[in-house]
Each structure stands twice: as structure tokens, then as C-alpha cells.
């Protein structure tokens, strides 16, 4: 243990502790900007500098480990003045010109720079705003980059590289020309970017945000010739309330449904319904592959970030991916066929909107092989904006139920939102189909939790089913390499985002591991509250097969609910 004195408080901390963390232990919050607990130390912003006795220069507390006997002062006049000057310098090159940018910024209500200004007690900026004159990057279907707002903190660079293992962003040039950019400044839409949106969570400013589609949705809602149907993904219901000031972990399903009805959607369906359907199709596919010597391991297909990832980085494994469309696309396809036919609505008049925790879903909805299933994919944040715009007091709203036909779901469907959930849901059903018995214990905990790669074996009759789960693309990459090197599995669940969909790039800000854990608890709580815990018990799914599709894997099911993939390479 190391003895250290911080602002007069003496304490002992483990060797290797940074000044920043030691201060935290002494209940002192040193302001930070480029620092992120989940990323490597960058040491760029220098906002966290402190005075260390006998050191000539100020020390960045995020990067310096405490030494025996160190005496640290966190808010001397020198420190306060330097922090304020750094802030002034930074803010003056942050596109603040005369465009009233804070008012129109995607991060107007949760800007790290505004927070920092308050923490530092900034009351004046003595410098004129610099116009960096860069153009916005609109090349991606999912994400917009506004480089003039970028302050070069490298949080996006590090998140993309370290958590997602991709590395879309880089620093280019030096001196005043130094910028964060994409490879050869090609734009995010022209690279191996998988649209996961984790960079948005990393960004302290509005330099990165989703491509907004809510205006199109407003247009549709106000177009009397359009029949607008909305669906909501499992992970949205446990996160939406955060956008209205609630603590992470509140289950908000019924209020969300009520708000959607008030917004004017003609039908509110549940993507959980099509998650159950996915289990029926994917489970059938898995059994077929196992029994008929098909390509194994089978890889899940619900995460569009993961799908683009494998198309770029492991195209030789495309046959391993389940041919099932994602739940979003399945529901869209069914609204425009099953629902349209049942209600005699021409499908041209139907607009399908999905509310997703995800930015990659916007890209997925635009995939040529599935065009038309879903018209607009909104993020959880965009839905919150719409609700706020209308002024619905959503927190105190009387809850409502999803609409019939595609509104019922099992507990197995809601856990799709968390890493391991698809696996667990599939096991509950596959086990029962093969053995005629319920999966022992039904709660299949080995695949739960935030461990990056999880493995499990389940004895199903004569077969020992080997399963694995990975989330966060750097873990996904590790697991893919294990498979490439010969490790054998039957079934693997892959999710692009850390924590699964609950940690998606479209979720309320902030989204970090602490928040994700709370959402995860809510997801499993919601599972328990469901009347049915297994996908094949969903009565509306049964009805769909009886009335329309025949049986899982039927010709019609294939036509509507399955897809194919494109080798993209690098």
C-alpha cells in the first residue's frame, strides 16, 4: 500500500493507483474529459491536472500513479487557472461561432462540455470562436459526423479500436491541421464501419450522432393516407425512462406503449413477438443443421453491427450465419404481408417504424435484400425526442398494452436485449422440442452476465450441445479467431455492442457498463414477470403458423423471414 495525501486527507491506496482514482477514494472528483474508465489512458485534454508537491509542472492525474509520500493538491489557484484556460482554448475551437450551436446540437441536454464548464466554474470565454470549416460526413446510413464540433479527445478512436476492435477513426496531420478523421477521409459510410454507434457513446460532444429519421416519421404520422405501424425492440423498454431523468433499470414497457399510441401510431407491435418467432425459425434451422450435417457452428443473425462485421472481416464464414432475418426485419415483413392481408390494407399505404436501441438497424433497414420491410428505424433517443416534443408526461402515464396479433411475447423474447439472451431463449425452446421436457431450471445462467466470451455445454438427449456467446466486437473477433483455429461449437450468439442490445449505440446517453448492468437486471426481471417464459408458448406465434406460415422453416416462412449475406472484405 502507498501512503498519499490528497487535499490534506491522508490515505493508503494500492500500488499503481492513479492520482485520479486515489482522489476518488478520498471522495474527491477531479474533473476529466478525455479520460474514460473503460478505455486506455490518453492524457490529452490535461483538464485533470493537479499540483504535486516538489514537481515543477502540473501532473495529469489520470496518467500518473501515486508514489509513497506523495502530496497532491487538486484545486490550487494554479490548477484552477490552468484548467480554466484549457477550457477556454478548447471551447473556442468547438464550432461555437454565431450559429447558436448549443440550441441545435444533438447533445444539447447532455453535453460533457457544458457539464465541465459548470464543474470548472467557467464564467467567461475570452477567445473568439475559430471556424474550422470542415464539412460534415453524411456518407453513412446510420451515423453523422460533425468534425467542427470535435475536440480531438480520442474517445471515439479508442472506443472503436479497443472495445470494438475495428479502428475506423484516426488522427491525421499535425499542428492546427490535426484532426480526427476516417481512413483517407473516406467517410464512415465507405469503410468497414459496422454502424454500431459505440463512438456516439464515447463522444463528449455532438460531433457524432445518429442519422435522424424522426422527421420522416412525423411526416408519415401526419399523412392521412398512411397507416403507420410501430414496433419496439426488447432493449428499448428498459432504457427509455433514462431519457426522462429516471435512474437506469426502470422497466417502462407499458408507459412507452401508451406514449406511442398518443404519438399517433396506428398499431403498436412488439419486436419481442418477432424475437419469439426468430427462436422458432432459428431453432428449427439449428436442429436441421445438427441433424443433417449442415454448416456448424451456426451463428446468430440479429445484430446488424455484427453482420456487417462478419461480412467485412470473416466473409469465409457467411454460410455459418443463420439465414433468419433479425426480429426487426421479420416483424416489418409480416406487417406488410400477414397484417396487411388480414386487415385489407394495401401494403404501399403502410409505413413500418421501428424503435431500436441501435444505430446499425438504420443500415439494416436499407439493405437492398430486405428493402421495404422497415421504413424508418429510430433510436431510443429519437423516440425520447418525439415524446418530449409532444410534451407527453410519459413518466406518469397510465400504461397500455401492445396491440393484438403481434403484440404478445414470452420472457424468452425480452432477454434478447441482453448478451446471452438469444442463446438462452433458443436453448429453452430447442431443449424442449428435442427432449419433450423443459430445460432444467429454465434460467440458463452460464450465458448471462458481462463476461466478454461465455461458453456452455448442455446435454440435450444424446447430444452435448456446445454453445458460446460473445458481445463487444473485440470479443467477437477473439471468438471468431478461436473458431477459425478449429474450436468446435454448435451454436454461437454474437452481439456487436458491449452488453448486447441494452448497450446499443442508439440508447440514452450515458451508456456505460454500470448503466448496462442495471438495464440487464431489469431485462431479467421482466423475463420473470412474463406469463410465458418460452418462445414456442407465445399464442400469437402459434396463431401465425396456424393461419399463415404453416410450420417453422416452411417455404412461406423462408420467403418472408429469411435472408442472405454479402461478402464485403476489406
Amino acid at each position, binding site marked *: 500500500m502507498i501512503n498519499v495525501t490528497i487535499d490534506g486527507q491522508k490515505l493508503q491506496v494500492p500500488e499503481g493507483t492513479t492520482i485520479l482514482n486515489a482522489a476518488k477514494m478520498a471522495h474527491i472528483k477531479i474533473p476529466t474529459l478525455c479520460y474514460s474508465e473503460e478505455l486506455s489512458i490518453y492524457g*490529452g485534454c*490535461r483538464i485533470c*491536472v493537479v499540483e504535486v508537491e516538489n514537481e515543477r509542472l502540473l501532473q*495529469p492525474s489520470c496518467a500518473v500513479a501515486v508514489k509513497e509520500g506523495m502530496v497532491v493538491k487538486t484545486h490550487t489557484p494554479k490548477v484552477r487557472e490552468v484548467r480554466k484556460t484549457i477550457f477556454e482554448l478548447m471551447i473556442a475551437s468547438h464550432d461555437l461561432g454565431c450559429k447558436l450551436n448549443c440550441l441545435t446540437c444533438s447533445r444539447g441536454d447532455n453535453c460533457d462540455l457544458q457539464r465541465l464548464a459548470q464543474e470548472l466554474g467557467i464564467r467567461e470565454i*475570452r477567445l473568439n470562436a475559430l471556424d474550422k470549416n470542415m464539412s460534415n460526413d453524411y456518407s453513412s446510413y446510420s451515423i453523422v459526423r460533425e468534425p467542427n464540433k470535435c475536440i480531438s479527445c480520442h474517445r471515439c478512436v479508442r472506443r472503436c479500436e479497443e472495445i470494438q476492435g475495428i479502428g475506423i477513426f484516426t488522427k491525421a496531420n499535425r499542428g492546427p*491541421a*490535426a484532426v480526427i478523421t476516417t481512413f483517407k477521409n473516406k467517410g464512415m459510410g465507405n469503410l468497414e464501419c459496422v454502424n454500431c454507434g459505440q463512438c456516439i457513446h464515447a463522444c463528449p460532444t455532438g460531433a457524432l450522432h445518429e442519422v435522424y429519421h424522426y422527421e420522416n416519421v412525423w411526416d408519415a404520422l401526419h399523412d392521412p393516407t398512411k397507416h403507420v405501424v410501430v414496433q419496439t425492440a426488447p432493449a428499448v423498454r428498459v432504457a427509455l425512462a433514462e431519457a426522462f431523468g429516471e435512474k437506469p433499470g426502470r422497466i417502462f414497457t407499458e408507459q412507452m406503449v401508451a406514449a406511442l399510441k398518443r404519438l399517433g401510431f396506428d398499431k403498436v407491435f412488439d419486436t419481442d413477438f418477432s424475437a419469439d418467432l426468430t427462436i422458432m425459425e432459428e431453432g428449427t434451422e439449428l436442429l436441421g443443421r445438427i441433424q443433417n450435417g449442415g454448416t456448424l457452428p451456426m451463428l446468430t443473425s440479429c445484430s446488424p453491427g455484427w453482420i456487417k462485421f462478419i461480412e467485412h472481416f470473416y466473409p469465409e464464414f457467411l454460410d455459418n450465419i443463420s439465414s433468419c432475418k433479425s426480429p426487426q426485419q421479420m416483424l416489418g415483413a409480416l406487417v406488410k404481408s400477414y397484417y396487411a392481408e388480414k386487415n385489407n390494407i394495401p401494403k404501399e399505404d403502410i409505413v413500418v417504424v421501428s424503435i431500436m436501441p441501435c444505430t446499425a438497424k438504420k443500415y439494416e433497414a436499407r439493405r437492398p435484400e430486405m428493402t421495404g420491410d422497415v421504413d424508418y428505424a429510430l433510436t431510443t433517443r429519437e423516440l425520447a425526442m418525439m415524446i418530449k416534443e409532444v410534451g407527453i408526461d410519459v413518466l406518469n402515464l397510465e400504461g397500455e398494452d401492445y396491440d393484438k396479433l403481434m403484440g404478445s411475447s414470452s420472457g424468452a423474447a425480452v432477454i434478447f436485449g441482453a448478451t446471452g439472451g438469444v442463446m438462452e431463449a433458443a436453448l429453452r425452446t430447442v431443449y424442449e422440442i428435442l427432449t419433450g421436457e423443459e430445460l432444467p431450471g429454465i434460467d440458463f445462467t452460464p450465458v448471462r452476465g458481462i463476461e466478454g466470451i461465455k461458453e456452455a455445454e448442455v446435454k440435450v438427449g444424446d447430444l452435448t450441445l456446445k454453445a458460446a456467446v460473445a458481445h463487444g466486437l473485440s470479443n467477437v473477433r477473439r471468438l471468431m479467431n478461436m473458431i477459425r483455429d478449429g474450436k468446435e461449437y454448435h451454436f454461437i450468439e454474437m452481439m456487436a455492442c458491449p452488453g448486447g442490445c441494452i448497450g446499443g449505440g442508439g440508447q440514452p446517453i450515458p451508456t456505460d457498463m454500470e448503466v448496462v448492468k442495471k438495464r440487464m437486471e431489469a431485462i431479467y426481471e421482466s423475463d420473470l414477470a412474463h406469463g410465458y417464459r418460452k418462445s414456442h408458448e407465445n399464442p400469437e406465434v402459434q396463431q401465425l403458423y396456424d393461419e399463415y406460415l404453416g410450420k417453422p422453416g416452411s417455404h412461406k416462412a423462408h420467403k418472408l423471414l429469411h435472408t442472405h449475406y454479402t461478402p464485403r472484405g476489406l
Partner: protein
Amino acid sequence: MGETLFLKRKVSEDYSHYDFPILKKVIKMRREDVIAEIKASGLKGRGGAGFPTGLKWELALKEPGDEKYIICNADEGEPGTFKDRFLLENTPLQVMEGIIIAGYAIGANKGYIYIRGEYAKAINIFQDAINHAKEEKLIGDSILDSDFSFDLQLVKGGGAYVCGDETSLINSIEGNRGISRITPPYPIQNGLYGKPSVVNNVETLTAAAEILAQGGKTYANLGTDKSKGTKLVCLSGDVKEPGVYEVEFGAMTLREIIDEFGKGTTGELKFVIPGGVSTAILTDDQLDIPYTYEDIANVGSGLGSGAVVVVSEGHDLLELLQNVSRFFMDETCGTCFPCREGNRRVYHLLKEAVNKGGFTSDDMKLIKDIGKTIYLAARCGLGQTSMCFIGSVLEKYTDELLARR
């Protein structure tokens, strides 16, 4: 008083016949004894930071690991500095001998010399010298029939001033962006490719070789208590005879260097930059001090890399400030906010001042605040010293600058 020729004594020799006599002697010595000799000499790093060379080598030798690197920093970028170029062009084999000796002393079998890309002549000469040494088997396996093998590779710099900083230089050799690393760990523990590495300046390594030839004591007998030996001074600016002069520490004052070696100034002397544009200026009344690390530090500046730039009356102060500011603005690597944004801002403030014909006291205060912030909070030496020149000019010529309006 003339030059004290310690380093420069072999300048006239034709290097093609040079056969590494010092290395031949050193390679028979114990590594610890080689280092002891350097420690006895009191040699400090001549790149600017002044870290004791013997101590650096000792720490590197003690560091565990089979793979270590010696890197010669020849990325001489400090404006006004050209001593390393002089050595590379005139005594390349002595420089190389110094590198190999250092490699031997710390137990490194691979060395790099990172030469500033603009030094085309020096690069050609040094590459020839490496080829020559390889032919003569002075570089390679079991050199000079010892059990010591050594390989040396020349790397051309890509044109970034920041790569003169040792951790940035290491990043650059690795093919990464030239930006400083967070220290600790220092290169001695975790340097090139994560291995223990020593980065030494050209002049340091050349001096080390000569010290082993002439003895650590001989060197230590030159100079003062705190500044041992000699230093190559790069005299430039408004002097009649600019050039590289070898000066024994403490034997001459700054004014004597200017008057005797430079043969005086070309106009009425206004101020002197004693250690390159990363150091604070000294005015006429501060020049009668011995040329030593300690005496220059005492008057608030630094000896830096040894670049003595003389500035006489008749220059536009604002223009000079803008020129230096432009340099630092362009050369900041862009990693840390104080250096990137600060130097950009100072440049813009100076430019505005030129446009409106002078400074306001608000401008002055702002530049000083920014300067203080960069000094106290920047990530590496580039930033920390980037405002030394500008800050000192503002301080010493406040009235003159304010009066312009």
C-alpha cells in the same frame, strides 16, 4: 581564448581510414567499467534535457531483458541548432563508434540512428559510413573478434519537430504517429518495441567515445563543478562569423563567445537566445555570465541544445514573435489540448496584433495566461518550452510592444 578541441580534434581526418581505435579498446573492458568511466566524466545529455549519461547507461544495463536498443537521436530540429549535422557530416565514424560503444555498454545488439529527413547530405554520408563499417566488419556478428554483435540501422525522419522528443522518436521508428508517450514508463524500461532502450543525442555519443579515448578524468577536469567538459555551440543570427564552436564550460562568457568566435554582432545587439527558440531570451545586460548550465539557468533561461542565436536591433519584434509562434503552431503534434490549441491561439493573437498595429494589455494578459497553461500542463517538452521565447520577449519588451499602438 580559442576553442577547446575535445570533440572536434579529429575533424580533419579522412574517415575512410578510421578503424575504430576507441571501440577496440572498449570492447575488451567490462561493461561496468565503461559506464564508470562515463560517470566519472560527468557527461550530461547534449540534446537539451541534460540527463547524466552514465546514469542512463547504468540504469539500462541493469534493466532485465536480452533485447535492448541504443538509439542515436539525430533529429536535430531546434531552430538555430546545427552541431549534430556538423558531427554527422564531418566525423560520422566517431558518431558511429559512440553508438556502438553505448550499445556495448548497455548490452544492446541493435542500434538505430534517426536522422532528420531534411539532412540529405548527412544521411548520405552516414549511410556510406554504415556500409563502410559493415564491409570492414566493424558492424555485424562478433565484431573485432569479440563475442559482441551489433547491427545499426539508419532511419530517416519524416519531418516532424516533435520526433526530437525521445518517446515520439521511438513511436516514429515503430511506424506509428510521432507523438509523445506518457512517461513513466521511461524508454529505459519500456522503449522501442517495448524493450529497454537508451536514446542519446549525437553530440553525447560522440563525446562518450572521446571520453573513453582520453579518459573520464580528462573530461571532468574541463568545465565547472556542475557543467563538465565541453559543448558544441551553434552560433548564428546577427554575428559576423556564425558556426559550430567547441567551448569549455565556464571558460568563456556568452558575450565572449559572440565577440571572439562570432567576431561581434552585425548591428547593435538587442538580445540573445541562449539555447534555441525553446529557451527564454537574455538581454544585453545578462550576457556577462560564464557559459554553463547553472549560470544560464540562474538568469532564467537554459542552455538547451547549444544554439546561441544573436538578434540585433532593427528586427520587428512582432514579426519575430509571429515567426516563432508559427513554428510551434505548425509543429505541435496535436495530442494535448494546451499545446495544440494554445499555440494556435497565440499565433492568431499575434497575427491580429500585427493587423491592428500592436498589442492591448488584454492581448498581453491572454497570451501570458495561455503561455503559463502550456508550460504547466502540456504533455511533452515541445509544449512545455514552446512559449519560453515568446513569454520572455513579452516580459522584457512589454512597454515597447504596448507602445506600438
